[in-house]
């Protein structure tokens, strides 16, 4: 068990390292010379060249990657900070600390600060969305799976197939149309601004609803098919032939084994909600990671893109890791090897 854990953590770090290099190399192709970005559209060529030299942006890729890594881990001070560049960018934490992603070109602030708020907002969204998705989809999935073939199952299947077929933007727009534009019950945007009319909670309702609809429909289908598969396994027959009550069979035998597969899917959904809700956050103007990513990419804010992608990578690999861990914990065949 311990060995498995250590093994996975090492794997985790290796993947992260490779991925971060790839990421760095890929973003090198992104448009916009960094120095020009910093100086803005009206800068003169000479200024751009001067800054490029001062920031050593013309070094070879590997050198820059290693410097970026060293800055990130706090071994080297950030290039952009300090007086030497004349950009007036300062970081209250000092020039050198662990997790130093540098400065956002778009916002002229330390990326750590930019991220802190946004990430908190995205986590809020994720907690609500996942918190609702899990019970809803488990309940519906188990209901449909245990009544496979009945009208209940067919109704749930038709609804979930339809909902998984709807693009997020269609669902978002439909909900805004109904609940905001037509009925006026809920705000149509969720910038989490303090307002007199809509509380932060009410601003969360629609984005959370879109996410819950999108992921619970999907998870429900996975749970359903896992339940159906599990029901067909001989040990369920054993349990029934033991004379156990249907409830006991469902909870003690079916669920326990049927939930192993959906765990991975649920973790993937968590990963998605933490890093990939670009569309929903953009439509609702929700100040989370997804919208920040879109803005950064459209602006060409290189350092912010790198920071965000690295965080997403970490989340993605961490959820994979957790998925494996969940497998190990849930399945005694692996745990008690």
């Amino acid at each position, binding site marked *: 068990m311990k060995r498995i854990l250590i093994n996975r953590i090492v794997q985790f770090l290796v993947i992260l390292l490779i991925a971060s290099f790839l990421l760095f190399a890929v973003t090198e192709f992104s448009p916009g010379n960094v120095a020009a970005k910093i100086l803005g559209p009206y800068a003169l060529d000479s200024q751009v060249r001067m800054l490029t030299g001062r920031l050593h942006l013309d070094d070879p890729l590997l050198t820059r990657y290693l410097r970026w890594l060293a800055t990130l881990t706090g071994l080297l001070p950030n290039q952009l900070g300090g007086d030497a560049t004349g950009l007036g960018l300062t970081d209250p934490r000092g020039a050198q600390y662990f997790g130093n992603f540098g400065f956002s070109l778009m916002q002229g602030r330390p990326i750590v600060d930019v991220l802190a708020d946004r990430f908190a907002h995205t986590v809020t969204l994720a907690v609500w969305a996942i918190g609702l998705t899990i019970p809803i989809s488990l309940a519906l999935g188990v209901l449909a799976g245990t009544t496979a073939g009945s009208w209940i199952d067919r109704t749930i299947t038709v609804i979930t197939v*339809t909902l998984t*077929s709807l*693009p997020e933007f269609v669902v978002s727009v439909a909900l805004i149309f109904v609940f905001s534009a037509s009925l006026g019950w809920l705000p149509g945007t969720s910038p989490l601004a303090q307002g007199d009319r809509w509380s932060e909670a009410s601003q969360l309702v629609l984005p959370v609803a879109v996410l819950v609809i999108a992921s619970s429909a999907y998870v429900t289908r996975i749970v359903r098919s896992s339940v159906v598969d599990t029901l067909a396994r001989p040990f369920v027959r054993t349990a029934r032939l033991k004379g156990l009550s249907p409830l006991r069979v469902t909870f003690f035998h079916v669920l326990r084994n049927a939930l192993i597969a959906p765990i991975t899917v649920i973790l993937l959904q968590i990963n998605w909600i933490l890093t990939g809700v670009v569309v929903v956050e953009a439509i609702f103007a929700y100040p989370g990671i997804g919208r920040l*990513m879109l803005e950064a990419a*459209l602006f060409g804010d290189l350092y912010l893109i790198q920071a965000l992608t690295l965080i997403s990578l970490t989340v993605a690999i961490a959820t994979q890791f957790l998925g494996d861990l969940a497998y190990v914990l849930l399945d005694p065949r692996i745990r008690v090897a």
Partner: protein
Amino acid sequence: MMTPLAGTAKHDRHRKRARRLGRILFRSGSVSVALNILLFWAVVAVAAPLLSPYDPTTIDFTASLDPSPSAAHWLGTDATGRDLLSRIIWGARTTFLVVPLSVLSAFAVGGVAGMVSAWFGGWTDTIIGRAGDVMLAFPALIVYIILITSFGPSMWNIVLAVTLAYAPGVARLMRAQVLSIKSLEYVLAARAAGEGPLYIMFVEILPNVGTPLIVDLCLRTGYAVILVGTLGFLGLGLPPPTPDWGGMVVEGVNLLTLYPHISLFPAAAVTSVVIACNLLADGLRGLRR
């Protein structure tokens, strides 16, 4: 000591299998609905020049002031004054070109990677598997945004984006399928008969990876329709004035309360194709059992 093939029984069985396929494909309501939808759009896509009342890019300068449906424009025009019906019809052509191309490309790349990975195992497998992990770990939408903002929106970049997104998943599925087939006796027999890896991979294994991959193909086609739409929604779809359903939805989103038709018709078109793909996948999954 001839062992007679119970001829009639065999034919019965053939007929039965055909009947079963037929039942699933046509008698099962959902699958026939799905096939009809796809067939409908395929016909529309092929016959677009015949069916569309206007050129999809021609602007009706008078209609741009009031895009509502009218006698001249049955489904109205978009905000720019282009006939919506014609654009939806030509949009089918775009969708039925870009999406299958993207998905097939993803399946070609992912399929070969998964096949090679499973067949050779060892380091090849590890490297391909890890590369897939890393690719899957990247937040997909951001990768496309970076890709498309870097290289510009074009059909090939969308194909590339979809391929990057789906190939690792396809590779995983293919790998699992091949691994399960790889140890089956007929593959062992082919190996023992000295067949080369290419022959075994493509002649012996490929025809048998079967239903799960086809189901996956249907599902991913649906997702690709959504993805292409989403890229369009974010303004990263096909370059204008190519009619592209996803992009058309976006064009009308702002006017939803005033001229809902501009978004709703193309949204319905996208959704119908996605639903059809998903229903088809469901039906085919039934066929496997």
